[in-house]
Structure formats: structure tokens, C-alpha cells
């Protein structure tokens, strides 16, 4: 059985399959694990902000990179999960099961909305490039609605939706009596991100993943092999919505706060940028790009640098022009070529 699992993890659905890669991967995980011991709680919580965005980015890679469907408004499910968690956990304040109920509620709510919307999109044979615009319309609708819930009448139980100021005082996650804050939240994020990455990697190396990639390449050919491609696309859409929901839940637990601007136009573009710049057809590439781009945005803004947006815009244009398949992927291939040449050189 374990060999089967190892095979699933080691499969070539994602870049990096050689032994050296896996050694490097384990080293990286250890470094990330040791990081908080060396730095202030602020640095740790800052890095956990980068980590908590990874599931959303992986969801984008799964849906756009592996299944060929671009959803421009995927942050809608990030927001739905965050708000639902805030409402449930907020109303169950003091009860240690509040946060767990909130997490389940958040995941359920996002899955429900995503399910209905995905049925709406995939069963109407809409042309491929209209889907990003449809999903964007959904996000703008959600932002406009949430933005005007400022009045006192907009509350669920004791929790105010808060309109454009956002919902505040959202309780952190806790299991039993242990509350995840600062360093503990960092490790909580790490575990979830690792689980998402390895889980997705296994999924994409499995039969299911191969068929999803086939759908991206040629939907009709795949349908004639007997697969209900619309059901699979629907399933992948809901799964990536759940990943976005996981990021949403981690975000509200990190910042105890969420505003409608989380589902606005600017936030909607970020995961698309991370996936495009990293290389959407590889989970690892998107993961690395998410961390690096978030780190760059934060460093620029903490120096009061007004050029952050211009630099990100330029990075996007350069990526799409010179690295159409993504910077990290092309780098990985380049490294692959170099090592092969070195190995073959050594072998002769």
C-alpha cells in the first residue's frame, strides 16, 4: 500500500520528481519549521499570511492550470467562507466548538454556492473565455451587497456584517481549549498547506487527475472515452472553491477581520497573477510564486514605496511575454536541462 502512496506523491503531474528534488523539498520543509524559532512573532505571523494564501493559489492552479477553466472571481468563495465562519464562530463565542462549527459552516457555504454557480456555468455550454467574466460578475455582486450591509439591521444573531468597514472581532481557531495564535497559528498554517499540496499532488497523479488534464487538452476526445466532462469540471470547480474557502478561513483566523474588499476586483486578480507568474500547470511553481510575490509586495510597501503596483504590473507583462508557461516552470526546466547535461556528461 505504501508503495502506491509513494508512487502517487512522486508522480510527474507536478515538476520535481527526481530524488534530489525530494531531498531539497524535505530540507525546505524543515527550514520553514525552524523559521519561527529564529524570528519575532511578527515575522512568523507575516510568513503565515503568505502561507495561508497558498491553498487559494493551488485551487487556481488546479482549476486553471490542470483543468483549463479560468475563474476570475474565485475570491468570492474565500469571502463566503470567511464571513460564514465569522457569523457562526461569533455567535458561538465562549463555546469552544464555535470555531470548528464555523470552519465546517464556511466550507459548506462555499461548496454550496460554488456548486450552484458551477452548475449554472458548465451546464449552459458557455464558451470558455466567458467563464472568467461570469465569475467576475458574481464577485462584484457579492462585494456590492456586502458593502451596503453597514446598518444595524444587517446582523446575524449578535454578529454585525459591518458593511464596508468589515466584520471585526472574529474569534481565532481553537481545538478544545488550545487557541491558535502567533507561532502556533504559523504551524497550523504549515500543516494545512502541506496537506493541501501533498493531497493535490496525489489527486493529480491519480486516474482522476490524468483525466482532468486530458479534459484541458481536448474535452471532446475525453468525452468520447466515456467521461462526463461537465460533471468532472463541476467537481474540480467545487474542489478549487473549497481550497479558496480554506484560505478564507485561515485569513479570518489570522486577522480576526474581513471586509468586502477581499472579494473586490483587485483581490480577485491576485490569485490569477500568482498562478500566471509562477506557472499555472504546476502546483509547486504556483506555491513558490505566491510566497515570493506576497513577500515582494509587502517589502515594497513597508518601505513606503509607491512603485509596488508598477513593479507587479511589469512582472506580469514580462512573464507573459518571455515566460508564457510561468517563470518557475521554465526555471525548473532549465535546471533540469543543466543537471541532465551534467549527469550525461558524467556518464560518458
Amino acid at each position, binding site marked *: 500500500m505504501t508503495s502506491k502512496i509513494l508512487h502517487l506523491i512522486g508522480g510527474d503531474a507536478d515538476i520535481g520528481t527526481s530524488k534530489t528534488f525530494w531531498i531539497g523539498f524535505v530540507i525546505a520543509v524543515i527550514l520553514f519549521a525552524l523559521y519561527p524559532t529564529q524570528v519575532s*512573532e511578527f515575522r512568523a505571523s507575516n510568513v503565515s499570511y503568505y502561507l495561508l494564501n497558498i491553498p487559494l493559489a493551488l485551487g487556481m492552479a488546479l482549476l486553471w492550470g490542470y483543468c483549463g477553466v479560468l475563474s476570475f472571481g474565485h475570491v468570492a468563495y474565500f469571502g463566503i467562507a470567511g464571513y460564514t465562519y465569522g457569523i457562526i464562530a461569533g455567535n458561538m463565542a465562549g463555546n469552544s466548538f464555535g470555531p470548528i462549527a464555523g470552519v465546517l459552516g464556511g466550507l459548506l457555504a462555499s461548496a454550496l454556492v460554488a456548486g450552484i454557480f458551477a452548475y449554472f456555468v458548465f451546464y449552459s455550454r458557455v464558451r470558455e473565455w466567458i467563464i472568467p467574466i461570469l465569475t467576475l460578475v458574481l464577485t462584484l455582486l457579492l462585494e456590492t451587497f456586502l458593502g451596503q450591509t453597514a446598518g444595524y439591521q444587517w446582523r446575524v444573531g449578535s454578529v454585525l456584517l459591518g458593511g464596508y468597514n*468589515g466584520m471585526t472581532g472574529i474569534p481565532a481557531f481553537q481545538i478544545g481549549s488550545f487557541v491558535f495564535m502567533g507561532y502556533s497559528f504559523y504551524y497550523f498554517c504549515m500543516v494545512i498547506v502541506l496537506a493541501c499540496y501533498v493531497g493535490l499532488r496525489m489527486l493529480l497523479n491519480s486516474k482522476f487527475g490524468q483525466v482532468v488534464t486530458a479534459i484541458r487538452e481536448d474535452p471532446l476526445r475525453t468525452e468520447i472515452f466515456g467521461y462526463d466532462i461537465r460533471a468532472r469540471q463541476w467537481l474540480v470547480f467545487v474542489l478549487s472553491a473549497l481550497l479558496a474557502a480554506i484560505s478564507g478561513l485561515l485569513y479570518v483566523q489570522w*486577522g480576526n477581520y474581513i471586509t468586502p474588499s477581499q472579494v473586490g476586483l483587485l483581490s480577485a486578480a491576485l490569485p490569477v497573477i500568482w498562478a500566471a507568474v509562477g506557472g499555472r500547470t504546476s502546483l509547486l511553481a504556483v506555491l513558490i510564486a505566491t510566497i515570493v510575490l506576497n513577500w515582494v509586495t509587502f517589502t515594497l510597501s513597508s518601505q513606503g514605496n509607491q512603485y509596488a*503596483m508598477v513593479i507587479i504590473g511589469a512582472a506580469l507583462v514580462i512573464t507573459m511575454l518571455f515566460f508564457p508557461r510561468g517563470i518557475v516552470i521554465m526555471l525548473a526546466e532549465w535546471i533540469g536541462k543543466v543537471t541532465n547535461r551534467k549527469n550525461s556528461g558524467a556518464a560518458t
Partner: protein
Amino acid sequence: MKNDNKSDQPAKESTTEEATGIVDPKITRRTFLKGSAAVSAGAMAPMYLAGISKSFAAKSGAVKIGHIEDLSGNLAVYGVQKDHAAQLAVSEINAGLTLKGGPVGSGGLGAMSNHATSAPVMGNGDKDLKVVDDGGKLSASGMAFVEDEDVLVDSGESGILGREVELLNTDGQSNNNIWQQLTKKLIQEDKVDCLVAGFTSAEREAIRPIVDQFKQLYIYTNQYEGGVADSNTFCTGAICEQQVIPVVDYMIQKFGPRVYTIAADYNFGQLTAAWTRAFAPQVGGEIIGEEFVPLSVSDFTTSIAKVQAAKPDWVFTLLVGSNQSNYYPQAAATGLKYPMASTVNMAQGYEHRRFKAPSLNRMYNCVNYIEEVPTARNRAFVKRWYKMFPDDPYIGQMAQNTYFSIHMYAKAARIAGTTDQEEVKRALESGLHIEAPEGTVFMEPSTHHCSHYIRLATADADHNVSFVREWPSIQPWWLQRLGVNLVKHKEYKQYIPDEDPFFKS
């Protein structure tokens, strides 16, 4: 086609408006405004001055002030102004200068005011008012206000307590996530002595939980909807009771009781509209229409038609952001002639300079500061500003708030004799006043809010600014009505009008 709307002829000033001290008692609403009188009696917080011991060892190194504003993105037009204000204040402090002022005890201005007991008469009618640009003294009939030449004086030391002040300014990029990260960085890593940050209420609410978690001394310098009772937070911007009540009171007197409110559809717009709904009936006003417009809307054809259908005496426009300021040119183009009033216009986004006249004709704006304030101290401040930032477009209300807030922080630290945050908070609660460019500002201890020198500015057909009414010191009394006293018991929440029975009537 009847066109007898009396607002078309230039409004004839019937009686000589007599500007009063706090708020004109003439208007019969004694019960509602009982609160403001209670404030001047003062919560008699104990005099902290003597109690602050000098035993704390002065921390070495620079005094760090963390500053977050939006230098890029949609809100940069406001953020850059505030950033420059902070730089100006810090450079003055380091150059050994400070604004006059000091502890006056919690009794407020009344107790030790060496200034005119009552504000001057603002001239008889609108027509003979003029704006004095060159800084000369006003004629006796105009706005005569006994006032010293300049309020910037020698502080006796360079920096604060001999330590140089370092300003850590960062760019929030109009994005709330980045605000939270920057706040954590400034508090946990840079360990700033004082945090001055926040333009929108959304940004303030994003970082206030983090401020409370680390008990960080935090100054929020923006005009906002009011209600924040937070032991770590000091709000130096103007709030509803200082802006809505004076302007609604004046407009109803001058143009009539029928009010049409059109407000931005988010917290500030809705809460300010709630104040208007509650207060207007007290002074004989009547809200005949209300529309809340989403922030993203920029085409107002429908809203303008609804205003015309309602035929109000005047329009209360609480519109915010660049999209919504399209209302003014579009309304003017459609021939909408109703006088307008607002609390967020001209002083923040300098619409009277951005739009061609006469789209802001007969716009009345109740603000605590506007660059055109014709007093000697303000002209000196404006001159200093443009010497440091020659190509800035305008100095807004929020920029002035940030400027005097940082000076107030320096003053409080000097009184406390240390930059230890708990001590400085006690010093700020000791009933401190400061001579800001707008006029005298008093930090009211129990609510952590400031009294302000409120002026009613108006723009005429070719957008010249003049002042029709003044209230030298309106106290922040609403939180006290709700029983807030941060000196006695700690609180960390934002009250909203629904929690005050008065708004239910």
C-alpha cells in the same frame, strides 16, 4: 412652469448671524444638547500633571513614530497629503519647534482661554464677504479675531526629550491586508512609540484589534462617523456631533426644512444619515428623501431625477471617493440649482479646485479645517507647508489633523517625561490643549476625542471660498451621553447610533 423655489434668488440674510460660543443656544433644543453643556463642566479627571514621576529611565535611541497611509491606489489623493503633514511635523519637532498649548485641566477651554470669549461676527450678508489671500489683517467688520501672529514656538529641545524623532512611513496601497501586516511590523518589530495611521473607517477597524492586542498608543487622525471608545486609541478628527448638527441647523434656518439626503452606501454615509434623521426633526427639519449610492456608481442621472422629483429646499450630499464626486458636475450640468450641504466635501478632496465652477455653487461645508482659513496662524502654516512641499495640490482637513496630532504627541511625551506608552496615554488624558492651524483644539480626557474649531465654509459661483459661520469649540459630547469614561474604566468598542435611545425616537 413654476420656478419660485426661493433658493434661486441670492439668500437675503434676515438677521445678523451671531456666532456663539459653543452652539447657538437660541435654537430651542435644550434637551438634546444638554450633553454639550455637561462636557464643559468637565468630568473633572484628577490632575495628572503632578502624579507623573520622572523616575522612568529615558529610553535611548530615536523616538519612533509609525505612520501608515495610502501612497498608491485609489486613496492616494488623500494619503499623500497626510504623509507630507507627518513629515512636516516631525521635521519641526526635530528642529526644536512646537505648537503652543499645554495642559489646561479637564475643564476644557472655558477655564483658561485667553482667546476671544466669542467668535467674531462674520459680516452681514454673503455678498460683502471676501477671502483675504495676502495675509493682511481683516477689517473690523470682517472676521476680526484676536490672535497671536504665529503659534509655532521654540520647544526648548531638539526632538522629544532630547531624542531625535524618526518617522517610519509606509504605504498601505489602499489594501486592507497590507494594513494589517504593516501594523504588526511597526508594533512587533520596529516597536514604534506611537502609531499614527488610518484614512477610511475600514482601515482603522482592520488595525484596531492588533493595536488593542499589543496595547499600542494609536492616534486616528481622520474625520469619521464617531463612536470609537478605545483606551489605546485617540481620535483627533472631527465627528458627527461637530459637523452634522451645526450645518443641518444652519441650512434649515437659512433655506428651509425640506432635506433630501444622498449618501455613500457604506458605514460613514449610513451613520451620518442616521444622525441627520435623528437631529433634523429637533430643529423643525423634515427628511423628504434619502438615497444610498454604492461606492462604485459614477453615473447619477437617475439619482438627480429623484432629487428633482422630491423638490427639497436643500440637498445633503454625503458622497465619498472619486467615482461619487462625479455627482457635482453632472448635477450642475442638469441644471440642479438646489443649495447643497456636506461634511465631506471641499476640505478632503478639494472638489472646488478639481471641478470647473459653478458645479459647487452654494455648497455649504462644515469642517474643522480648510486651506483657505483666513487666520494669520493658518497662513503661516500654509507658507511653511508649501516651502517644504512646493508642488502639493492642496492641504486638506485630514493633513492638518495629522500635523497637530504629532505635535500633540510630542507635547504629551514631554509632559510625561518619557515615551513609555502608558505614561504618554495618561499625559494625553490630562486635559491637553494645542494651538493648531485651525484654532485651539482640546483633547477631551474621558472620550479620547478632540474639540474642534468648526467653520461653515461656502463656495460661490466661481468657487471662491468664504466663511459664513463659526463655532470656536464644539465638544465631542456624544460618547459621554452614552456614559463612556475611558479614564475610569477601559473599553475597546465602537458604539453606533442604534445603541443610543435618542436615535430610536
